[in-house]
């Protein structure tokens, strides 16, 4: 039998520490001299190289993935040239190169090396499809017409083509493409202004009116639910609300009237777009989001388009079932949810850790609890989601609804998913992270400090509050940031406790009480899932997903790197301040 390192007792004879190992190793390679032979030494290096290979693969995976996301994400908004193609089957196309690949093995007839290209030809409203595959050898001519225009519209995705007319009440500009283009550019600022006015009326004024009417309606319902409508005071209240509703409705009619006029005026400014094969489409100028001639753009012009698209992406709401426009509500939802979560989780976690580490008597029970808390960090997030749905949404939320908002039933107020319940669910999920981090930090505070403080006559709480906690703050901070990073990147529990693909209202707005915790919200992670996985037009929305991914990744990685740096500095500090 071979001698073995006794690992269960973990002891090596202290008298002759190397004997055991020596025997161990000698028994393995019986002929010691043969080890000097070079080829065998090369063979003995083989396993090391294999392990190195494993590390290289792991590293390559992370680098590759990051590279993929960075390239695809950052390249998305760069204006690309529009190609005009004629193909051997009499087709004329105008589009962007989307992707190239060798023709799959199935259709071998054209030879194995043939390439094909996926062109994005846009104009979904007339072509019914955004993309077309064209085999390279079918292309007869290829050019980049300078007058080709990319029109990003509010609906139906982009239009690739030309502009033939600009119609305004003052007259129609047509014919010379240069003149038409200039006319269109002249009209754009006023169109934008009109859009802004209309949107303000729609969103702000009418939205607020509706909200007020709803408040009065709910007040009436509340009175009805109370059941006794025959007392004079209640009768008076009822009449007051009914009167208010009537007044509001009249106001609504007036505003709707003026809105109609504004819209009609706006519709009078129109542009006629032509596709490469001569099909035409007329739309109001205000329906244009962005317009440029990519084949004519200078480098600066490209940067400007890129910057404008980036601005729209970060600061504007989404359009077209989330596949275009921006992700502002999702960014906002993610940040607000993460902040709410931190507000809930930090005091809880710190109190828990203080209780565990400073106050509780250490023993098997406490270490058992510690293991349990530790393990909760490993419990799947979806389990927390299920718990959140059952406990917060249905049990607590349902109870709140029954007693506080009976007038809104059966529409749930707190009884469904909401940003509050999602945040609390995530808070519960990340509590172990904070407890563990805080405890670690508390354990790292040298006992001498505590004893010194106590010896000076400070009470236990004073010691904890003034000495131990300040010293442990960096640890708490690290834990908080790690918890935030975990919370921001988590999707599964959110999608059952309050995230929606498109939230009509934000959880924070100008209407009292300003923060609406009962509302559902949008989230970057869920946005990725929804657009990337459930979208019907995946090819077109992929770019958006990469960009969203980049944004989410940016947030999460920034949080993580910050946590790592704080942790690093804090460790150093304790090393230098070894008490």
């Amino acid at each position, binding site marked *: 039998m071979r001698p073995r*390192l006794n*690992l269960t007792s*973990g002891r090596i004879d202290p008298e002759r520490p190397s004997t055991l*190992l020596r025997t161990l190793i000698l028994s393995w390679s019986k002929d*010691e001299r043969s080890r000097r032979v070079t080829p065998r*030494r090369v063979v*003995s*290096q*083989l396993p*090391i*190289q294999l*392990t*190195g*290979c*494993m*590390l*290289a*693969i792991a*590293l*390559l*995976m992370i680098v590759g993935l990051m590279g*993929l*996301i960075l390239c695809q994400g950052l390249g998305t908004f760069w204006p690309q040239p529009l190609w005009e193609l004629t193909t051997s089957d009499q087709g004329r196309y105008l589009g962007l190169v989307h992707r190239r690949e060798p023709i799959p*093995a199935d259709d071998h007839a054209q030879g194995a090396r043939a390439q094909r290209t996926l062109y994005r030809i846009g104009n979904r409203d007339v072509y019914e499809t955004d993309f077309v595959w064209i085999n390279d050898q079918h292309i007869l001519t290829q050019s980049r017409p300078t007058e080709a225009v990319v029109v990003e519209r509010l609906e139906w995705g982009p239009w690739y083509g030309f502009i033939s007319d600009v119609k305004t009440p003052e007259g129609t500009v047509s014919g010379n493409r240069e003149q038409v283009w200039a006319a269109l550019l002249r009209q754009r600022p006023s169109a934008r202004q009109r859009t802004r006015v209309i949107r303000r009326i729609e969103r702000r004024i009418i939205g607020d009116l509706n909200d007020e009417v709803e408040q009065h309606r709910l007040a009436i319902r509340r009175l009805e639910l109370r059941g006794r409508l025959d007392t004079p005071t209640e009768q008076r209240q009822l009449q007051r609300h009914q009167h208010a509703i009537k007044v509001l409705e009249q106001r609504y009619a007036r505003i709707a009237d003026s809105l109609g006029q504004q819209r009609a005026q706006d519709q009078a400014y129109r542009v006629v777009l032509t596709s490469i094969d001569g099909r035409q489409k007329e739309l109001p100028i205000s329906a244009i989001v962005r317009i440029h001639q990519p084949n004519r753009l200078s480098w600066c012009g490209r940067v400007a388009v890129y910057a404008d698209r980036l601005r729209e992406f970060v600061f504007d709401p989404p359009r077209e079932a989330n596949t275009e426009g921006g992700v502002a509500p999702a960014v906002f939802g993610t940040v607000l949810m993460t902040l709410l979560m931190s507000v809930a989780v930090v005091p*809880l976690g710190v*109190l*828990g850790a203080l209780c565990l580490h*400073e106050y*509780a008597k250490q023993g098997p029970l406490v270490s058992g609890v510690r293991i*349990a*808390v530790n*393990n909760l960090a*490993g*419990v*799947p997030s*979806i389990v927390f989601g299920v*718990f959140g749905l059952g*406990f917060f949404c249905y049990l607590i939320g349902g109870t709140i609804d029954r007693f506080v908002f009976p007038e809104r039933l059966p529409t749930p107020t707190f009884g469904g998913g909401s940003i509050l319940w999602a945040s609390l669910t995530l808070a519960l999920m990340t*509590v172990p992270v904070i407890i563990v981090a805080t405890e670690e930090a508390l354990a790292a505070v040298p006992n001498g400090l505590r004893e010194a403080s106590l010896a000076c006559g400070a*009470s236990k*709480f004073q010691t*904890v*509050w003034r000495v131990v906690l300040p*010293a442990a703050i960096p640890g708490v901070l690290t834990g908080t940031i790690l918890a935030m990073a975990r919370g921001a*990147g*988590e*999707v*599964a529990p959110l999608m059952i406790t309050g995230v929606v693909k498109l939230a009509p209202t934000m959880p924070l707005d100008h209407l009292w009480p300003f923060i609406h915790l009962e509302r559902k919200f949008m989230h970057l*992670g*869920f946005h990725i*899932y929804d657009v990337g*996985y459930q979208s019907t037009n*995946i090819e077109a929305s992929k770019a958006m997903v990469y960009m969203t*991914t980049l944004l*989410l*990744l940016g947030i*999460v990685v920034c949080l*993580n790197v910050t946590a*790592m740096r704080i942790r690093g500095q804090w460790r150093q500090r304790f090393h230098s301040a070894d*008490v």
Partner: protein
Amino acid sequence: MAEFTALEPTPARRQRLPVVMTGDPAAAAFRRRVRLIDQVARTLISISGVSIIGAVLGIGLFLLLEIFPLFQGARLTPGIVQPVLSSDQPARLIVIDEQQERVGVLGQDPVLRLFSLARRQPPELVPIPGLEGERVSAVSRVIRDPQVAIGTEQGTLWTGTIQFVTQFTGSQRRVQAIVEPDFKLSVASDHRITQLAFRTAGEQSVAASVIDGTQLLVTRITTQRPLGGPVQHTQESARVLVEPLGHPTGVLLNESGTQLLVGTSHGLLARWGLPAQGPAELIETVPAVPGGCVTTMTYMLGNRSVAVGGSDGSVATWSLVRDDRAADGWRLRRIHPFPQHASTVTVIAASPRDKGLISVSADGVARLHYMTSERTLWQFLVPALPTVLDMAPKANGAVLVDHTGQLHHWLIDNPHPEISWRALFGKLWYEGYQHPDYIWQSSGGTDDFEPKLSLVPLVFGTLKGTCYALLFAVPLALFGALYCSQFLDKRLRNPIKSAIELMAALPSVVLGFVAGVVLAPLVQNHIVSVLILPVAVPAVSVGGLALWRRLSSATAGIHRGEFWILAAGVVLGIMVAVWVGPVLERIVCGGHFEGWLLRATGMRYDQRNSLIVGWAMGFAVIPIIFTICEDAFSAVPKHLVGASLACGASAWQTAWRVVLPAAGSGVFSAIMVGFGRAVGETMIVLMATGNTPILDWSIFNGFRALSANIAVEIPEAPYGGTLYRVLFVAALVLFAMTFVVNTAAELVRLHLRRQLQGL
């Protein structure tokens, strides 16, 4: 000490401290305040700490509480008891409305008596039009169908509908029964019809009637509705030779009226085919009640299974199961037996809502069963022997009339009959399947759908995904960590560790998206290249290094730049694989891997398969395993390594035989934690598998994991319903799996720490 400004005496403290020492009243008050604050803080912290920890641990408890109602039986509350018929008149039919307000009872007289279930009232009489003067002797009715067929002692067959409608007179609502006749024929002149089965399919109706308790007569009725003229019925009757099998004691017709099922006094179940032309053909007979006789039969909801009661007290459901050896490809099989009654089963009623049934035996024991789960949910005593029994349309009540003419009403609260331990974790025989199986299929298109809620395919899916993920991640992470801690250039160590820790920060939804949407099509196009990667990459990488060494005549030791050469070799290896793949595909698989796979092994290739999930989940798990392993390897005391090297062991020998065993429990704990993470991963499995709940280990197939299943189904599950609670069971299973595994890992880790302290 400069960092700990909190420690330096603040001005306030400098002033207060001496004051505390003296005994003036201000100091005493101050001391009291401090003590009070201390007390309050201690209590607060303790209470909140304990409650937080309690709340965190309470999650498991809450999940348990939510699933508890699944395993509770049904509850029956007795309702009104009232006399409805004189004791000499046996009841033939009982019907109840959806709100359980009214019940209609038909005795021998052709009059439907309507009673209120709220209070005792004299009955409202609704005569059956056209049956005046005859005596009802048999009734046929199918659940969830208003059509009723009545046979009389005079040999008349009457058909029509009996329906409850809600009428409003002013603000008063009333439930009223409406009887509408369809047609009336004489099928057995002046002979008593003792059993009746009736079905309508389009213009054709079929009636099977037992005449005088011995003969079986099948009547085919064709209805013609000429434009403008009166409706005409033509009938043709034929006798079915049932005598060799005993007296017919129960007859049923299948949904289309093409097959006849007869229970006999010899305990046999006989199945006849009824072709459109020609006589009935006996297809098969099976012994249903050995040594006894079949006493009662009824179709279950969905008309696919038949509940059969026997004189020996046996209750079972029978169903047609596909069998290639049988004459017409189907065979009657007993698929769900229930506990035997002590005496003859007299009445069975099927639930119109689910696959439940109530069986009553001659000793007055009534049992509420559920077919799929074979559960007996409740047992109660019936005061006197019932003659007719019916369950309310929502399956939340039952009414029966006993042989003394008393009406009994029970309210049934039976929220989750389909769940039992066997339904969740065992094989069950579902309707339409050839054998018992593990199936997950929570919803279907029709009302009579049988929910199949076995968690086994889901648990299997979770384990399958986890296995492939670990198969991919463990070698990479473990050996990568070994290399990183033992052989890697020290300057590279920290950046590489940080990079891999960063990998852990990647949100899983990103991995899911990349795997499911980007990688899956790519892998499908280059599947052969991907399959040879595990060989090609190490070979090219290591071979490249050897070549480089030879060319640069470097020593055989571990070189600083070695890692970069290996990394370059990995890239090169991938390129080689991509280049070799199509060539290999053409040579081995004839140019098309998927077709070849199907031909050679019978395996299907799904685009979103376990290979993809293994990669993506492996990606998520690698940083966890790597970090813990790396820590464990680094924590191995340096003197062990030094001693080993000093004894002349090579670097690899030291790493393999000293470092790895010494860090063994750390490695184990790392793998366990990685397992826990992979088990609970949701977004990746949701996006990168096809989410098909199948039991198949093939790497080219997808699966459905517990976590993804919860995410998909819980938004649609109604609160408090069976599916909702079953999903809680799924969550609890996940919770338990990870909790157990993580606890094991933690214990091992503690063990390791103690062990290393000993070294």
